[in-house]
């Protein structure tokens, strides 16, 4: 049986028109790292707060380690929590913050001291135990908050957008640190974020949410490459998504931006010639056409813009009146096409996703 089970959980806030969370069912295995991913107001934080005990579900059951906890008080659940705003106690030193949970539980002083030392080593802040929170940088404060949550040896660790308040560079290094610590301790973890790269790179499984309901649950690779809904496809990663007209469903042929394109015929099952479908393509699966080579599925257009994103150069290609994004991996010898020049791109039929 799963370590944490949410069954048909629903939350309606007083005076609210619609449910904040609707029919949320999820099993989390022991030691798993699961992310809740979605835009603001999608219900991800509300769900997390119900698990923590800060909100009471309107309906449904939350079972942890075989025990129904929906009606337990938050201070009885033994669940560690990390907040976006760090929420360190300003009147206590770093060491006292980390030791607070054990002190509340009446642990002996020597035990607390030992555990605090252990935690400080884990977050690599051995020297800063005597500092006050306001003397630390944002990244350091959040590491202390993580140590404080872990110090009580919680059954479950919850993180509510822990990196949102930090700079881009620190976000990346701290997320790797969080993942490493989670792996090392094997602690079951739920992570809330609106940043798809964070969710993909950290998680064993990602729960994509929108308007209070689950859109898809799956491994990062699955979510990214095989999205089940248009929302998941467009929210996770960059996407070319355009309307296409079915030409021949059995042969897997559609008309996209004026060109005849082959897509997996299985994806057109149930459609008839003349139907409009959405065809989605990841920019990194479009390739610049080598001059002279004959390949299928080509689109030819005019380069509108080339945005250099670092590891990737993104070409905006105007094909008819639609703009197609083509990603190329950076290299120092890269010759980006000139703006206004004509370019042909090609892609495999298998890389086309047909949605709705």
């Amino acid at each position, binding site marked *: 049986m799963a370590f944490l089970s949410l069954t048909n959980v629903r939350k309606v806030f007083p005076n609210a028109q619609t449910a904040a969370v609707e029919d949320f069912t999820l099993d989390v295995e022991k030691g798993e790292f699961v992310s809740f991913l979605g835009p603001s107001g999608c219900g991800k934080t509300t769900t997390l707060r119900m698990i*923590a*005990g*800060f909100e009471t579900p309107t309906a449904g059951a939350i079972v942890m380690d075989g025990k129904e906890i929906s009606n337990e*008080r*938050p*201070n*009885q*659940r*033994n*669940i*560690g*929590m990390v*907040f976006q*705003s760090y*929420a*360190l*106690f*300003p*009147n206590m030193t770093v060491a006292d913050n980390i030791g*607070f*949970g054990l002190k*509340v*539980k009446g642990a002996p002083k020597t035990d607390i001291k030992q555990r605090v030392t252990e935690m400080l080593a884990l977050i690599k802040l051995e020297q800063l135990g005597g500092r*006050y*929170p*306001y*003397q630390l940088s944002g990244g350091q404060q959040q590491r202390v*908050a993580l140590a*404080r*949550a872990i110090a*009580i040896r919680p059954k479950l660790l919850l993180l509510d957008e822990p990196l949102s308040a930090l700079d881009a560079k620190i976000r990346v290094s701290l997320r790797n640190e969080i993942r490493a610590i989670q792996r090392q301790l094997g602690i079951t973890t739920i992570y809330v974020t609106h940043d798809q790269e964070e969710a993909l790179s950290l998680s064993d499984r990602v729960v994509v949410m929108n308007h209070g309901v689950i859109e898809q649950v799956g491994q990062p690779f699955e979510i990214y490459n095989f999205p089940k809904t248009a929302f998941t496809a467009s929210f996770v990663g960059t996407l070319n998504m355009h309307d296409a007209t079915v030409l021949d469903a059995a042969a897997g042929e559609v008309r996209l931006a004026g060109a005849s394109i082959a897509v997996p015929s299985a994806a057109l099952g149930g459609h008839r010639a003349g139907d409009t479908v959405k065809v989605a393509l990841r920019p990194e699966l479009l390739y610049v056409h080598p001059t002279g080579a004959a390949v299928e599925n080509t689109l030819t257009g005019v380069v509108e813009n080339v945005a250099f994103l670092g590891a990737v150069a993104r070409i905006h290609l105007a094909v008819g009146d639609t703009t197609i994004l083509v990603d190329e991996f950076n290299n120092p010898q890269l010759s980006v096409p000139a703006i206004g020049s004509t370019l042909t791109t090609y892609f495999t039929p298998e890389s086309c996703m047909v949605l709705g």
Partner: protein
Amino acid sequence: MARRVSWFAWFWYVLGALYFIIPLWGTFVFSLQKERGTFSLAAYQSAFADPKFAETFLYSNVMAVLTIIFSLLLVVPTAYWVHLRVPRMRPVVEFITLMPFVIPAIVLVFGLIKTFSRPLTILGVTVLPPLTNSSLSTDFLLVAGYVVLSLPYMYRAVDNGLRAMDVGTLTEAAQSLGAGWGTILWRIILPNLRSALLSGALLTFAIVVGELTIATFLGRPAFGPYLALIGNHKVYEPAALAIVSFGLTWLAMGIIDRVTRGQGGTTTGAH
């Protein structure tokens, strides 16, 4: 740009200073003129020599301390609860705490006397004997009145203190670490309110020590009525006592400033 606004700043600085300093200076000079033709501290000596001064001052101090204790017990949990659970009610609660200034003290004291000079009965059952019979129970009424008077300052101070921290998240963080309400109040909320409470307490102290109306009508030997009495009979001594009271205020202000400064980092750290 800083240069451009400086005439503006100076104008208000000077105006504000004059506004406070002229009456103060006048009072001070006047207080030194008890001995004709020369400046002396005679008025101060005369004021301190009266044994009634020490007596009433001590009484008012005791009342002030009691007032501070009771108003803290009333205000801190209430303000914390309002912040945590019903933040939308904050303006309403704030307005209620301001009522003592809207109901004049004289009305407040009338109400207290009218209500508590008879046995208090609810549905014919006596729940409280008359409180104005003994000086101890009258002192209780006095403190009750003072608590109402001090509410605006105390509530504002605590409210400001709570606003400077993220009450909701700190509470949830403490709960997730296993803390109950008592621990949260005692170990998290109160320590972070230290300078706010000190500031509220000092203000309450100053108000209670100077209060006139309630003490007069309840007939208690407080410092305020004594000051008024001197004002009716003597000329220079009230001015001297006013200057002393003003000096004590600035002392208190200095203390608050130091304490607040010591904790400065705690609040600025939020940025």
